[in-house]
């Protein structure tokens, strides 16, 4: 009974942790716009957590610059177990217009298994909400598979 309750509530209160890996802040404002009254992700239980230890879903924006790569990987590593990684916008997915530049360390999927990608160069808040909802389902699935 308890396990089912935990599983169900894992789906209902995913906490986000936002990592800006050199993004142009287009996606960052869009992510925060999701929490504003207009789209209000909090009604689905989303909340921005202050530290990776308290996060379930890690949202990465920006084309993973060389400077930010080790820091992004370390922060993702510090997130406790049932976690999802969501890349927002095209930059983390492929490096977008910056691909091939000497200071870009390529798509995030080269280093970490990316669960959900929300495409769009600055995806619409609705798209972000869909992405996060999908990530929450994956989170629930991962929680179900945990020991």
């Amino acid at each position, binding site marked *: 009974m308890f396990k089912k309750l935990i599983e169900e509530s894992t789906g209902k209160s995913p906490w986000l942790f936002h990592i800006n890996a050199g993004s142009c802040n287009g996606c960052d404002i869009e992510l925060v716009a999701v929490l504003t009254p207009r789209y209000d992700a909090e009604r689905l239980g989303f909340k921005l957590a202050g530290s990776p230890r308290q996060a379930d879903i890690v949202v990465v924006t920006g084309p993973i610059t060389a400077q930010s790569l080790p820091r992004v990987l370390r922060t993702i*590593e510090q997130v406790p177990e049932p976690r999802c990684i969501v890349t927002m916008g095209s930059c983390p997915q492929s490096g977008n217009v910056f691909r091939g530049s000497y200071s870009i360390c390529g798509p995030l999927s080269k280093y970490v298994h990316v669960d959900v990608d929300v495409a769009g160069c600055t995806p619409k808040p609705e798209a972000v909400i869909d992405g996060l909802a999908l990530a929450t389902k994956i989170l629930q699935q991962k929680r179900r598979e945990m020991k």
Partner: protein
Amino acid sequence: MSFLSYQHFPIFTIMLYFLGAFLIVVFGKAKALRHAVAFLCTAGPLALLISLIGRVMVHGEIISYWMGNRTPVGDYAIGIALEVDALSLFFGLLVATAVFVACLYSFRYMERDHNVPQYYTLYLMLAGGVMGLVLSGDLFNMFIMVEILTFAAVALTAFRNKVTGALEAAFKYLVVGSIGSTCILAGTIILYAQARTLNLAQLAAVIPGNFGVSTKLAFALLFIGFCTKAFIVPFHPLAADAHGAAPASVSVLISGVLTKSGIYGIIRLVFFLFQTMNLGTMQFWLVFLGSVSMFVCVTMALAQHDFKRLLAFHSISQIGYVLTAVGLATGLGISAGLYHAMNHTLFKGLLFLAAGAVLHETGTTDLGKLGGLAKKMPHTAALFLIGAASISGIPPFNGFASKWLIYQATYQKAAETGNIGFALVTVIALVTSTLTLASFVKVTQSVFFGQMPEECKNAKEVPFGMRFAMGILALLCILTGLFPGLVTRYLTEPAAKAAFAAGNYINAMMGQGYAERIMGAAAPGAPAVSFASSGVWSPLSWLLLLMIALLAICVVALSGKYDKVSVRSSKEVEKKYQLFYGGETQSFSQVGGGDLFWGFKHNWRHYFSFMHDLHSGIVNDYSLWAVVALALAIVYALIVL
């Protein structure tokens, strides 16, 4: 009277200390022999005094012992007397326990020092001096004992003269201390001039009625003398310097025992010799001094960077509590004050021993350079936490029980007299208690938790002997905290009654009916002292409830695999278990020492900078304060008494 009857116990306790001091000088070379003599000569007096509890405390009997059996002739006391009533025994017990535990601690603590035999000699001299002061019934004898303990304390402060400031502290202590003892001497002599006797009981019978100008001067001199010994506000920098430099076991004695002897002197002076405790102005004077020293010293402690200097300032602020409570001159007040004095000796001794352990392991007590010691010294950290919790008044521990009684006493005094000043004192008392909590949170975070700097890497647990001594004190802290009812009924209330009942003290000493004959109606008989406190607090049942709740929660947690946490095993990824530094690699950054409580310090920055300049560290300034305090006391005594 057979040789071993209880009548001789007072002289035995004092003699054992001095005998021990002498024996160690003779046989001091061999370590085992030295430890055995020291152990015997500290355990003996403690045992003797404990055996007296039943007789003196419960039955209220007063033991008087005339040196050389020169009992008073007619109604004039010739010889020197030792007098043990409930008040003296209470203080004697405090002294004996503190001395015994500190001696146990110093066996292992002083190993690394050289010329250790001298240390033990001075140590036992100090103990003997204080015990003599507390038990003696003769005023000049008290002066002699004060001199002995001041000498021993000065010598012990300067024992480790390589420590920065040891010599300087010892010299300042000697200068201002001898100003104080000279005042006591002058006061004693002026009283002798009037009453032609030195015996406390006879003085207590003769003096209260007729105050001449010289008697008032004598009161002021004696009062200032004992304030110097108790390190009340104008003289508190001495204690701060002395503790900072003295070895930890000596600091236990200085803060636990010396200050109490000062308080004992003041109580004898105010409640026995001059019996002016019911004067409104006298109560105001004592409570004012107490609350000023409470608040000033705790704010100074908050601004300290050195562990032992912080503890020193705290001990003076706790003495401020005791003086405030005693100054109220109500039954509950004195009982609460004495209870707090006892608790203070216990938890302050524990804290100083913990500070000594930290010094013993890491070689420094600077809060900025320490950190994360709980991992290396878990037992010391646990014992320190018990001490810190009890000094800052966390419910189950003893600090709370006595502070709570003090709040009741001050607020009840305010209700009775209707003057809001005492309510203000309660407020100051509580704010000081929270500030004490704040400074001990600061110490806990900067010494025992947080991250460990390089220098402390090779710190390891202190030897068992030291931990055993700390364990005794911690156990006593918890016991006296859990059974306030027992402590007040058997220890503090009889002492409080004795403090008021000067009459039977005189009769016991000088023979029955003496007090009535001399003082007529004014003889203070058994006082109608109410110890009723309007508060409700039973720590045992609270602790029981807490244990049940904690047990239930732990059972639920363990069943929910609460402790199956993920801790780094060798193969795990190392990054996951590093602290979150905003993504950076975990570098050493300890938040401790000076950079805590910025909010509070910022708001009070003018006050702190003023206080910092006031404690200039120059001998002349401290002596100037002493002289100014003496002048004020004389003016007060001449006008008010």
